[in-house]
């Protein structure tokens, strides 16, 4: 219990420090609004279009893969914790090892499948390839 009180206390301190810095800064800093100052930065040009743009599908594929493997690590944690105590308790090694190998093996097959279908290969959209800044020599 006291562990969680201490963690909660550090969470409170961790929030108070940035909020305190923001407050001190709000008291110190000047405010000089000028036209043009608050435009977003786009290499000095006037910003065009919105930012809620379509982006590479690859980010989504990677996120999907992550969910699978993240759950795998969660399920592996109990196994790694009991592994050594169980072996010291006299349980034969293979009895402990094969369920984990089967579990990781199934996911390894999944990774091979994702690899072969190109889920972890970065796709280049034809649009991005055709909009290179290099000019055609002709």
């Amino acid at each position: 219990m006291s562990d969680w009180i201490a963690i909660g206390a550090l969470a409170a301190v961790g929030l108070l420090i940035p909020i305190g810095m923001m407050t001190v800064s709000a008291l110190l800093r000047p405010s000089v609004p000028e036209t043009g100052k608050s435009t977003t930065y786009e290499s000095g040009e006037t910003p065009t279009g919105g930012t809620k743009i379509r982006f590479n599908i690859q980010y989504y594929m990677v996120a999907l893969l992550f969910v699978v493997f993240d759950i795998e690590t969660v399920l592996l944690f109990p196994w790694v914790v009991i592994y050594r105590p169980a072996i010291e308790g006299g349980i034969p090694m293979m009895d402990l090892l094969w369920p984990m190998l089967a579990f990781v093996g199934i996911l390894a097959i999944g990774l091979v499948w994702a690899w072969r279908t190109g889920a972890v290969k970065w796709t280049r959209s034809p649009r991005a390839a055709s909009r290179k800044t290099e000019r055609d020599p002709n």
Partner: protein
Amino acid sequence: MGTAPAQLFPEFIAETLGISGVPGQVVGALIAAAVIGNIVLAFTGVAGPWAKRKITAAFTDRIAVDRIGPFGLLIIPAAAVQLLAKELIVPEGVDRPTWDIAPILLPASALLGFAVIPMGHLGPVNLQLADPEVGLALVFAFASIASVSLVMAGYASNNKYSMLGGLRAVAQNLAYEIPLIVTAMSVVIFAGTLQMSGIVEAQQDVLFTIAGFDIPTWYALVNPFAFVLFLTANMAEIGRNPFDIPEAPTEIVGGYQTEYSSAYFVLFYLGEFVHIFLGGAILAVTFLGGASGPGPESIGFLWFVVKIWGFFLFTQWARAAFPRVRIDQLIEIGWKGMLVLSFANLVLTAVIVGVIV
């Protein structure tokens, strides 16, 4: 774990103040948390405005800050005042309050990770706030809250560079989180516990003796392969070179922090440094024997400081020495290289532990 657990920092304060029960726990926890928070802040204060410049200057054959104070050290308070007194420019169309919460969340999440880190003894005080049985899982959970903050900043800034930076940050953290945790699991197989003090204690045996000098069973020496894997994944997780593509100043300006100024920018900067030190602290606990080192236990904290500053130096060396990887290379290194190697390491470690125990 045969010996009695060491008294934790909040209990020490409660006992010194003579307050018992729950009020003692709360008061002790708050004071201890403030001390730990300020120790970490002091590290970042020295690292950010001073050490980073000095180290980069040494690598690139220049002279850095040396005008104010001895070795230019007084640049630290000067920079703090200067940065906090900058005007805050709120760009058009930002998504508030998301835009304001992101810079609070990043340093808070990184600081929270230090709750379970055993920083060793300083005199009679054991500088560790909490020692729950799930310590190692908890510290990874806290550290990964940072990704949420980076996405918030990237999405809310109404800037295309920020958006790209935020997306890159998530893709990178997702790709390297799994190898990081799976490699840490190989340490858990050796130690048989997730408790941070237990992992440190399991590294105190003697591996072998050279010329009367005992080499301890630090996991970096027991399993150097896992150490290299963990170090690499850690660099990606904290977004340092060669894996600094979420910021990539030469490609996407500053990534998620492009539109931030004044205290908000300082908080991002600070949060990144706290994250570097948290990465160093996790590395020290899991692979470098925590706060152990030659000499009495009461100077353990100094060894801990040496180890995490060693890691900081390493990140700065990498910054000076390695070119940045591209986003497609990053994804392929992560999913095709690191992931496979980390699972191979896990299985191998399990077999080796099964044979030698």
